């Protein structure tokens, strides 16, 4: 069941204006760099992007924002992006801010066929507005619904030809749940290996969730907050 496509262009075929995309990553860590660049090249517009963050002005999803390709962002935190803030405050960009844990769980729910679940997060805040409230164990919870996407674009460390994925360190983050929740899921990987190379015990995302996979040409992996200590 070979799912390999040759490049980002082949991988992203079919993505059109007005679609909903999930894009993996936390900050600039574990984002599908090559696919994002390809989205800019394709010039698709009016996208709804579900991604924990919105990149920085000149990298990650910030590139899509600069090119005004995004109609709506669904994120938990968008603090490091001036263009984002400008478009949001001016009303050009719709923004749906969601608690990070609810965002992660809603993506997983979408992939797992769970249409809705109760969570305490956001009760008593504007996040709860219009949502059903129910008490469990004496504590109020709100009903949150599943999220899915026309396409989910994720980034992994290693992948095999059948779409099995292994992530590295904290570059895992939202990628596994988004891979589950895409109607079509595209994975870009640093290293693409033949099926049978990866230990089946160590697969993070089983290939059933991935429809297309390619090896990225180059990963900049920009660091957002380089913090170091000095050797004594």
């Amino acid at each position, binding site marked *: 069941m070979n799912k390999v496509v040759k490049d980002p262009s082949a991988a992203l075929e079919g993505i059109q204006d007005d679609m909903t995309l999930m894009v993996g990553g*936390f900050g600039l860590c574990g984002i599908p760099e090559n696919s994002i660049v390809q989205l800019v090249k394709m010039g698709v517009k009016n996208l709804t992007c579900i991604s924990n963050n919105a990149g920085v002005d000149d990298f990650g999803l910030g590139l899509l924002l600069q090119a005004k390709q995004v109609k709506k962002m669904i994120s938990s935190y968008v603090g*490091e992006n001036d263009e984002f803030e400008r478009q949001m405050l001016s009303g050009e960009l719709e923004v749906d801010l969601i608690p990070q844990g609810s965002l992660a769980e809603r993506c997983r729910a979408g992939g797992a066929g769970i249409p809705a679940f109760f969570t*305490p997060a956001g009760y*008593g*805040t504007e996040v709860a507005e219009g949502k059903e409230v129910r008490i469990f164990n004496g504590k109020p919870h709100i009903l949150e619904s599943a999220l899915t996407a026309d396409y989910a674009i994720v980034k992994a460390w290693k992948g095999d030809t059948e779409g099995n994925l292994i992530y590295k360190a*904290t570059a895992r983050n939202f990628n596994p749940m988004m891979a589950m929740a895409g109607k079509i899921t595209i994975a870009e990987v640093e290293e693409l290996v033949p099926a049978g190379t990866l230990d089946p015990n160590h697969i993070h995302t089983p290939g059933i969730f991935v429809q297309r996979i390619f090896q990225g040409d180059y990963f900049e992996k920009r660091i957002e907050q380089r913090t170091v200590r000095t050797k004594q």
Partner: protein
Amino acid sequence: MALDKNGIAKRIAQELKDGWYVNLGIGIPTLVANYIPEGIEVEFQSENGILGMGPFPFEGEEDPDLINAGKQTITVRNGASFFDSATSFAMIRGQHVQLTVLGAMEVSQNGDIANWKIPGKMVKGMGGAMDLVASAENIIVAMMHSNKAGESKILKACTLPLTGVGCVKKVVTELAVLEIKEGKFHLLERAPGVSVEEIISKTEGEMVVPDFVPEMQL
């Protein structure tokens, strides 16, 4: 004398108990990791998917795939583990994390917290804060007692959009340690050299003040 940020972190570190898993927010809370009391072992969870965070890396050893929730490069300790965001918040929501320390713009006397939004101005988003405050059994807020305009942030009721309701148990500021119970602040300790009068004057919320308020031992 009022504490600096490191002083606040140092005082909060005294609340740590052996064997606890702890989530530290961005800013002052991050500094708590520098002051773990001798003889106790705690494990730090960061909501982007790591347990067992170590110190910042040495220059040249940064790994872009290894960051904390503040997007800072970090290292791992022996026994660390990585996991996805859903599992990370399963730990938080499922109350497997024993202590959460985070910053705030405002805290009210019934334990409400506001720390994510200033209407018409700041639109950064709540990140994981709403999940953390809604679920943690033990929340300590690290914050300054007043804002830059000199107005108290320790309030009868929050004025900013809330992050969570009735969840904060303790507040540590540059002036005082406050406990929240039965709808009131309770003054537990004052910073070395800081007078009870100063704390009272800078606290807008109702505060129970005992006859004797000990100084923090730092």
